[in-house]
């Protein structure tokens, strides 16, 4: 009896209560909606009657993951201005989706990217290749969700090791999915969006009212060419209070200006390896050009990657028609845009008032600033701080639970229906497939939890950026080129997608292995074999940047390969390509819409 008491000793009852209610509510809604909606086609058909407002909330709810909720704030705090590209590009990527892909894909009537790949090229083989990328991108996307879970649980229960949180949350959600709950039901996802928006805005407005507003908090940092005296005047005028920065925190001018610690890390590491007298010259020559390359590569990855995320495109088909699809996209941009203004504010205030987080590593580092920051006002307003912290914890749970279960469902669907049901055992019965679905859910959940245990030293937001880079080099070129160029052949599309995607995947994996080898904790020992990689990168900082942010070369590579190979195999362009192009582009009023993919096939996808 003593053990649980000691375990709960450091737990704040308010934080625990809010988090517990969110988890229970999510699980309950998942089970309830699983009863009313048994098959994937139920979900799609029911979805078609959903209004623009609900559908836009649901898409936003599925999109805002742990990276958006916790990662952005942590990264803005640790890296400053450069991290702002993440929220901006997460939101603006939808514009590319709207301009080039959403309308044609909606007219084509394919539910998922594998459906589209098969229908556009009349090739079941290509479908299988496309399915593999659902799994690749999915695993990269689940790792940061798992870290979010580990960090949040380690915050709620201060004595709990990071990995216990990952295993616990991963097991609960996996079990829930395996038992049939948590299908991507519109209502659940829509409610999750409003929980997240509430959980990020209410605490930050209360905080800003107490400690000073966004502009004042940014203003408390010295910018380019400013001196301590001018900052002192400014702080005096705005009344912003600051705690002294710790040694590990970046200095003011580097933090507030572009080309700061995030984008110059590789060059700085290279300079540190040089003899002291050469450092200044090396930095002056390479630092800014290289960080410009980093910035552009990051932008390409995030903007193109959003347009190629498999679990997001699915939702566009729940719209009744193309007009509603376009309006939904616009509302999604507004809803997520409103949300994305606020996480950086946590990072900015955290820098001024909670600098001790810079010294923490892993689960104790800047990634938990969203959860902990509201407790600042506890000293003045007592329990209000705990309540607000409980609300942000509840939002964090909503974030990683909704995204993780959505990903788990689509990955399990890909494995159970496409890989098992079509490739391994095409003749399996319906009951066998249900068993396969459950086993696949447990298998994928298990792999996701195992991967999640290893990534404590990596930043949440950075990992999501890698998933986007892989999507940008595989699915985005596929969709963009297939929609707008009729000369594409299956071989061209497959070569480009595989090469681009696998190159990005390899580069991202190498970067992570190098970073893990540097970790001071147990991960550093496991991955110590990769330490020489960092030495090599110190000599070649540009290669390190191109590995960390591969989009700038992998996206053009994929598109070039698609064009070259398609030209070489131009005899294999589908015979009815003109009809396919008409279906993709002709206004729906002309009545050309042709459902290429029947409902029973679509059921396999999700």
């Amino acid at each position, binding site marked *: 009896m003593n053990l649980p008491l000691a375990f709960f000793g450091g737990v704040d009852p308010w934080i625990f209560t809010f988090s517990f209610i969110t988890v229970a509510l999510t699980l309950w809604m998942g089970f309830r909606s699983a009863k009313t909606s048994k098959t994937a086609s139920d979900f799609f058909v029911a979805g078609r009657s959903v209004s623009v407002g609900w559908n836009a909330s649901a898409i936003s709810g599925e999109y805002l993951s742990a990276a958006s909720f916790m990662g952005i704030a942590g990264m803005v705090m640790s890296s400053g201005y450069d991290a702002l*590209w993440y929220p901006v590009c997460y939101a603006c990527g939808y514009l590319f989706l709207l*301009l080039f892909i959403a309308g044609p894909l909606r007219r084509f009537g394919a539910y998922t990217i594998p459906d589209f790949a098969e229908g556009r090229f009349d090739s079941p083989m290509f479908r299988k290749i496309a399915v593999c990328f659902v799994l690749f991108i999915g695993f990269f996307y689940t790792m940061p969700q798992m870290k979010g879970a580990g960090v949040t649980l380690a915050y709620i229960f201060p004595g709990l090791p990071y990995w216990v949180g990952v295993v616990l949350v991963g097991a609960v959600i996996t079990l829930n999915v395996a038992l049939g709950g948590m299908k991507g039901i519109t209502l659940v996802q829509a409610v999750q969006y409003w929980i997240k928006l509430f959980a990020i805005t209410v605490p930050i407005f209360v905080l800003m009212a107490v400690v000073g507003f*966004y502009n004042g908090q940014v203003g408390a940092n010295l910018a380019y060419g400013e001196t301590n005296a001018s900052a002192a005047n400014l702080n005096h005028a705005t009344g912003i209070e600051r705690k002294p920065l710790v040694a590990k925190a970046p200095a003011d001018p580097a933090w*507030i200006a*572009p080309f700061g610690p995030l984008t110059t890390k590789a060059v700085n590491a290279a300079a540190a390896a040089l003899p002291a007298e050469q450092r200044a010259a090396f930095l002056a020559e390479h630092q800014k050009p290289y960080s410009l390359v980093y910035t*552009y590569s990051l932008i390409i990855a995030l903007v193109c990657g959003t347009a190629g995320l498999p679990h997001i495109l699915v939702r566009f088909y729940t719209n009744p028609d193309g007009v509603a699809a376009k309006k939904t996209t*616009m509302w999604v941009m507004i809803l997520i845009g*409103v949300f994305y203004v606020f996480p950086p504010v946590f990072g900015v205030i955290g820098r001024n008032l909670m600098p001790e987080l810079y010294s923490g590593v892993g689960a104790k580092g800047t990634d938990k600033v969203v959860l902990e920051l509201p407790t600042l006002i506890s000293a003045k307003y007592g329990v209000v701080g705990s309540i607000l912290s409980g609300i942000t914890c509840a939002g964090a749970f909503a974030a990683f639970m909704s995204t993780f279960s959505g990903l788990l469902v689509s990955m399990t669907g890909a494995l159970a229906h496409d890989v098992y049901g079509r490739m391994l055992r095409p003749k399996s019965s319906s009951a066998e497939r249900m068993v396969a679905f459950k086993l696949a859910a447990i298998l994928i959940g298990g792999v996701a939890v195992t991967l999640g245990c290893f990534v404590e030293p990596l930043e949440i937001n950075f990992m999501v950026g890698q998933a986007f880079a892989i999507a940008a080099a595989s699915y985005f070129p596929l969709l963009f080129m297939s929609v707008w160029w009729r000369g594409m052949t299956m071989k061209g599309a497959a070569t480009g997608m595989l090469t681009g995607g696998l190159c990005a995947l390899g580069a991202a994996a190498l970067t992570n292995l190098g970073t893990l080898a540097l970790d001071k904790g147990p991960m550093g020992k496991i991955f110590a074999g990769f330490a020489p990689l960092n030495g090599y990168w110190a000599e070649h900082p540009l290669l390190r940047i191109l590995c960390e942010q591969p989009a700038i070369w992998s996206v053009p590579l994929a598109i070039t390969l698609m064009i070259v190979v398609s030209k070489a195999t131009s005899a294999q362009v589908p015979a009815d390509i*003109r009809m396919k*192009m008409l279906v993709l582009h002709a206004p729906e009023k002309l009545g050309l819409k042709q459902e290429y993919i029947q409902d029973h096939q679509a059921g396999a996808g999700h």
Partner: protein
Amino acid sequence: MSSPTPNHDDVVHSEPFLRSLMRRQLALSIACAATFLVALLGLPLLNYFAPAFMATRLAGFTLSWLILGVLFFPFVWIISYVFIKRSLRLEEAEVQDLHHVSSK
């Protein structure tokens, strides 16, 4: 919704119709994308070549921070609003043109 006559069908399935359809839609999308990309890709260039200007203070924010952290979102909303208006009008025009041609 019109019941397609054979003549109407011929026009719809003709090469020139598809070509003009795709060209008009792509032109609109590229115009909107270009506006967006000029701002998105221009901002790092401004940061690169005019750091002192971009560090100008506006109510506490630096100019660069204000643009990226706050103003960029409404900018994208405006582009998407304009695109949706125009693309709906374009689809309407395409249907009208077709009726016009096929009724001759």
